[in-house]
């Protein structure tokens, strides 16, 4: 039982937790900027980025995948801007057509190329591969102190720990100007804050989060990790620091409980199968959001008449 937990449950659980923490951080800011759609876009465009990077280099290592995803993110930003300018389409519409087109291209690339021969296949790209991230050397508590056994941990684990450290460091460094630019962009610019650079940086960090979550929950469910925990936390508090902390707690709870529920709940109910951990995590995230929306103290938050965001006045 212990060996089974250490080998089959603990690694996916830790990986899912790290991935959801990495996602929740930028998610808080995307939510406040009303750019949740950007998170959705990034989580989709990482797929063609990762596939193209693999086809070009033959490598599926973390830095290569991240580089491909960032390149795809930059390309998608250019495409969105080009579509917006040439067709005068709504920015959200431009974003929607861009990321679905790039995502579909990624799926086709994946199918026609040899990439599917490695661990990149369409199903995993869509729904993640949490259950496959196992630790065969995790045979008992002793393995946790055995360097040889620890070396057999899935590579995603240290990679996600590094991504989380990088994400936390980046947010610590830019937090103050990021908050000012998010609340009042014009004022931020008058303070000399490079608001365009900050926006681009946030897009880059969102891409980093999307790449990180890709291994765990795949493209489609990443948006749940990016947005549900911060959105639930937003409904529970009016303090931004508390919102961030709560979002991390909800993200971790969704990941841990989701992984456990997927593996243990159906058997405990006498059912002869298990369900997808990624699906359980995303469902739990949505459930937490629903609970916060139903019972949270801010559910009747009055939108002050002057509080609405209006377009630029001329």
């Amino acid at each position: 039982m212990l060996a089974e937990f250490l080998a089959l449950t603990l690694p996916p659980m830790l990986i899912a937790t790290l991935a959801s923490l990495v996602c929740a951080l930028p998610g808080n800011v995307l939510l406040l900027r009303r750019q949740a759609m950007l998170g959705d876009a990034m989580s989709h465009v990482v797929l063609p980025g990762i596939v193209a990077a693999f086809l070009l280099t033959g490598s599926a290592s973390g830095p290569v995948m991240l580089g491909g995803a960032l390149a795809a993110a930059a390309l998608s930003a250019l495409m969105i801007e080009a579509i917006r300018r040439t067709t005068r389409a709504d920015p959200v519409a431009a974003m929607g057509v861009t990321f679905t087109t790039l995502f579909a291209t990624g799926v086709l690339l994946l199918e026609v190329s040899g990439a599917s021969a490695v661990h990149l296949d369409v199903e995993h790209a869509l729904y993640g591969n949490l259950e496959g991230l196992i630790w065969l050397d995790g045979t008992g508590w002793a393995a946790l102190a055995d360097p040889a056994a620890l070396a057999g941990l899935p590579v995603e684990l240290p990679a996600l720990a590094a991504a989380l450290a990088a994400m936390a460091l980046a947010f610590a460094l830019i937090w103050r100007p990021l908050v000012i630019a998010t609340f009042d962009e014009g004022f931020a610019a008058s303070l000399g804050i490079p608001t365009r650079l900050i926006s681009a940086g946030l897009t880059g960090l969102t891409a980093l989060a999307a790449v990180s979550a890709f291994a765990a929950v795949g493209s489609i469910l990443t948006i749940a990790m990016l947005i549900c925990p911060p959105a639930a936390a937003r409904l529970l508090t009016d303090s931004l620091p508390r919102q961030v902390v709560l979002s991390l707690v909800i993200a971790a709870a969704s990941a841990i409980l989701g992984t456990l529920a997927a593996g243990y709940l159906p058997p405990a109910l006498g059912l002869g199968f298990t369900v997808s951990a990624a699906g359980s995590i995303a469902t739990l995230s949505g459930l937490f959001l629903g609970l916060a929306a139903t019972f949270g103290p801010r559910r009747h938050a009055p939108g002050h008449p002057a509080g609405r965001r209006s377009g630029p006045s001329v």
Partner: protein
Amino acid sequence: MAPADSATPLPEIALALSGLSVAYGGMPVVEAATARFPAGSMTAIIGPNGAGKSTLLKAALGLVPALAGEVRAFGQPVARALPRIAYVPQRAAVDWDFPARVIDVVQMGLYRQTGPLGRLTPDLRARAEQSLADLGMADFAQRQIGALSGGQQQRVFLARALAQQGDLIVLDEPFAGVDAATEAAIIAVLHGLRARGRTVIAVHHDLSTVPAYFDRVLLLNRRVIAEGPTSTTFHRDRVAEAYGNQLLTAIPA
């Protein structure tokens, strides 16, 4: 532009625009605006809706790109002089549902002092609290910004600008949708700033209060119609020209 100015010795110019033009999506919004704002003056920018008043301010501060023209503040390119300028955007330009307390917003005005990582020293905290007190908002420091009335929101914005201790304060419609008490509090603070040699420029809508509040006016309708001391510039024919003869009866003689 105004002949009366060239006869007297020129005071220091807080802000000077020359030939400033701005377009949004190919549509000209401000055309070749030239204007000077002397240090220690208080200027109303007035003109009809769509005249480009907000855009003129934003372009003057470099917040939106200009097609052409030059802006100097205190004799320097405006980008270099920005640390001496406090900008108060339109209240409606931000989302007041943002998770922040009143004091958090005012402390944003201290960013030049703290930078991204610097500590808020006790002196800086006191400065933010004093700025709130100057606008009669001391008791609201811990209040959620979403719980404020429109007038209180505007006071918070002005308190944030006071905390910046700028020499030039640029305000976009500071009296839009505020109560009479707030308007009186704001104008008292602005007149106090002027008395201490600071320069104030505000987009203003209520023509009836222009002579009482402002010593200079700039009439704008995409281009500068007139600019100068209120007593010599704020006349019915000029204002009518700026407003395209829409508002003749609303203008004090």
